[in-house]
């Protein structure tokens, strides 16, 4: 220890300190503008050449809202998405998986409120081969009865694991609480034990026949295309997919009950309480979205935001609490009846059981102080610098660019939406950002879900007066 002290002294005496450096001139960067086109079969194609990105990302958006699942068959979209890769007209399920992996590719498919998303990643040199497999999966899935049955059983086995996960359990409870029971949004995206149990190959085939066709789909393809004939590869693969013309899919407007209240999902003995505090708000078509992004960042975007400054860095109640806005579903702004989109606005994190009451108390104080005093110009400036500044980092990989382009398509946004968002963030002032975040997170109209030990947390939470407290079993 003594020699170590000497070293500290040395450090103090010897290290030469310099003033904080100032940055140089920013080098130009812009969110990539994709090239938009269509294949003769009606498939929309967006492509973006990203030099250096040797792993190409392909995202296929299929318009098939969960709301269109037949009554009592929640989860059929999920099972169909998974069954796409379980055998085609050319390969059985095991061969298909082996062929994909032979390309060094990954293929994922999942169903969410707006539709089904199929994601492929593959080294550029093997793109044509992998696109062939992707096209087979979309064009001619076999949906063998035994594979569908296996996927159903597998899905039933997954459900208890999801219910045991505090974060997933909280998300399910919040959806159930916020949306009317008649709304598909109130129920788990991938179905319940009851509904999944009813799904068979015929139901999967029927959902496929109703929704999966090139005219109702968009493929986004991003990566380094040097030496790859993308046109030929697409024509030979996704170009061979055939189907009828797309009919518009009508969806019902999203409504929610935003009365301030608390639901505790009881987990006796839990060492932490999972918090999920939310409500619904407008989607990205709303003009206030950029201001809301900015304000939400200031509230809970990072560990130097208002929530973590108190809950983590001052009090040590948590490893981190985040505020965010996530689009649930959007429709085209010119759709009949106007826009019916919405997003989930939420604050999420875990706190130790004992600190649950004090942590919520502090969280509400942060919200009330924000409403009363607003954001500071300095906070707004740092937030803009971060949100705009990180764009070149955030969009380094092909997968990141493809994901955002596919989200834009799914949400009926123009292809230059993200590029414009950066411009608008830079123009947004402190007053606008304050108004947007206060409007997004009103202290008296938030639904709070707590997954934790009710015996320990219910009383302290009741005492806070943040709404009526109900306890449900875990």
């Amino acid at each position, binding site marked *: 220890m003594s020699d170590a002290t000497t070293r500290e002294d040395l450090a103090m005496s010897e290290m030469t300190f310099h003033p904080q450096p100032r940055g140089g001139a920013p080098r130009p960067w812009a969110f990539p503008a994709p090239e938009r086109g269509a294949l003769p079969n009606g498939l929309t194609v967006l492509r973006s050449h990203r030099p250096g990105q040797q*792993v190409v990302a392909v995202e296929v958006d299929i318009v098939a809202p969960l709301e269109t699942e037949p009554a009592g068959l929640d989860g059929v979209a999920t099972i169909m998405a998974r069954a796409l890769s379980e055998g085609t007209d050319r390969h059985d399920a095991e061969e298909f998986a082996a062929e994909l*992996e032979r390309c060094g590719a990954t293929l994922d498919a999942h169903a969410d409120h707006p539709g089904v998303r199929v994601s492929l990643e593959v*080294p550029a040199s093997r793109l044509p081969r992998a696109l062939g497999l992707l096209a087979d999966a979309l064009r001619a899935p076999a949906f063998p009865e035994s594979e569908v049955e296996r996927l159903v059983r597998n899905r039933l086995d997954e459900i208890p*694991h999801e219910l045991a996960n505090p974060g997933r359990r909280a998300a399910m409870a919040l959806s159930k609480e916020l949306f009317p029971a008649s709304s598909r949004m109130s129920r788990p995206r991938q179905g319940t034990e009851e509904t999944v149990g009813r799904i068979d190959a015929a139901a999967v085939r029927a959902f496929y026949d109703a929704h999966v066709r090139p005219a109702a789909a968009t493929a986004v393809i991003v990566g380094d295309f040097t030496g790859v004939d993308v046109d030929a590869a697409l024509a030979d693969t996704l170009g061979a997919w055939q189907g009828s013309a797309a009919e518009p899919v009508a969806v019902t407007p999203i409504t929610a009950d935003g009365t301030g209240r608390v639901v505790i999902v009881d987990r*006796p003995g839990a060492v932490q309480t999972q918090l999920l505090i939310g409500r619904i708000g407008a989607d990205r078509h709303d003009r206030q979205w950029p201001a809301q992004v900015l304000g939400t960042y200031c509230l809970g975007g990072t560990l130097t935001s208002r929530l973590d400054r108190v809950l983590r860095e001052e009090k040590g109640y948590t490893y981190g609490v985040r505020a965010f806005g996530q689009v649930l579903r959007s429709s085209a702004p010119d759709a009949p009846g106007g826009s019916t989109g919405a997003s989930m606005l939420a604050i999420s994190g*875990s706190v130790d059981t004992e600190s649950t009451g004090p942590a919520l108390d502090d969280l509400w104080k942060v919200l009330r102080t924000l409403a009363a005093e607003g954001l500071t110009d300095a906070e707004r400036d740092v937030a803009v*610098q971060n949100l705009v500044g990180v*764009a070149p980092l955030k969009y380094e990989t092909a997968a990141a660019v493809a994901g955002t382009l596919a989200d834009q398509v799914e949400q009926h946004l123009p292809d230059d939406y993200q590029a414009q968002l950066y411009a608008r963030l830079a123009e947004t002032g402190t007053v606008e950002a304050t108004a947007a975040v206060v409007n997004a997170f009103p202290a008296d109209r938030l639904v709070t879900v707590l997954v934790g030990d009710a015996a320990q947390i219910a009383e302290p939470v009741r005492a806070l007066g943040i709404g009526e407290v109900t306890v449900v079993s875990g």
Partner: protein
Amino acid sequence: MPMGHTATEKAGSGGLTATEHRLANGLRVVLSVDPLTPVAAVCLWYDVGSRHEVKGRTGLAHLFEHLMFQGSAQVKGNGHFELVQGAGGSLNGTTSFERTNYFETMPAHELELALWLEADRMGSLLTALDDESLENQRDVVKNERRQRYDNVPYGTAFEKLTAMAYPEGHPYHHTPIGSMADLDAASLEDARAFFRTYYAPNNAVLSVVGDIDPEQTLAWIEKYFGSIPSHDGKRPPRSGELPVTMGGQLREVVEEEVPSRALMAAYRLPHDGTREADAADLALTVLGGGESSRLYNRLVRRDRSAVAAGFGLLRLAGAPSLGWLDVKTSGGVEVADIESAVDEELARFAAEGPTPEEMERAQAQLEREWLDRLATVSGRADELCRYAVLFGDPQLALTAVGRVLDITPEEVQAVAQARLRPDNRAVLVYEPTAADDSADNDEEADR
């Protein structure tokens, strides 16, 4: 045909090059230029991890990593985070068994700021470190432990497996997150002594990758880091040497409130940096990587006895690596049935070796994983540091994928025969209860 089916001309290096430098105080520096995107990654690896911790102070390396973000001589409070994020950068630090890393990815024109910040804390952390920061971050880390391990089903499985696979007293017996009791016991003096012992320029490697001017970058590094004194007080970690195999099967049955039965096991495997480790990686990929693997086909597709089944590899340089089997059962299937099926598949694989198609698939999968890791400047910076710190040569990062593609089926079979045996594993079985107490894992603990 060792390199016959590589996806890229240069087997994953993508034409990357790196230059190496050393300051007079011992700080090793690796630079790699990539002008494609206007970003620059800074990565600093300190050669200290949880293997350097002593009894009664588990978790100290990770707790200390948190303290590195609490300010230094010229950086107030959370200034490190605020300044990097305010410049449009992203940052974090992580602690593993073998090292602690700190990294910033910056818009290229803000590179100098990241270097200034890293130098400030390397040279002057102790002038800002106080009890208030320690008490606060102790609570934060305890909540990290609860959130990632204690409050999640099967959350402490990895901790239990490593405790069995590396015997009491072995430097890898405990995981980086540490125990609650030891986190409680850590004192300010422990933290100070830890810094004085391990946080020295000659115990670190700094890599900078991206749209950089190497001469200018090196001049900045010399300017900010050059005057930090070197220090030779570091004690080497306790030896991680162990016999090649465990010589017997270890077993623990855990009764907890978990959603299904589970069979997990840790196999003792060759050290990272050897051909045998790459062969083991391929063996585990054929057996349990992805949805065309032998175990997935057998347990999930054919027997339908498991909801998920796979193998993972934790590569370690200072101790034997660890192959991690994880199977969650389907419905009421018994663990014994899963275990005999797994043993049958491992024995068959050891007897037959991989088929040519399996070798091709496994190599293609591992190659893509390498391309993914090298797709970002921060991924490349981290790999350059890894090979510099653990193997003394950052250039090895640029040829790693070539080495995986060079492995023969015979080598894969040999490692399976020697290592993937019941007498070389620690088994962890979960039996669900309806009581209240339960607990996933990671070799790393993020900040």
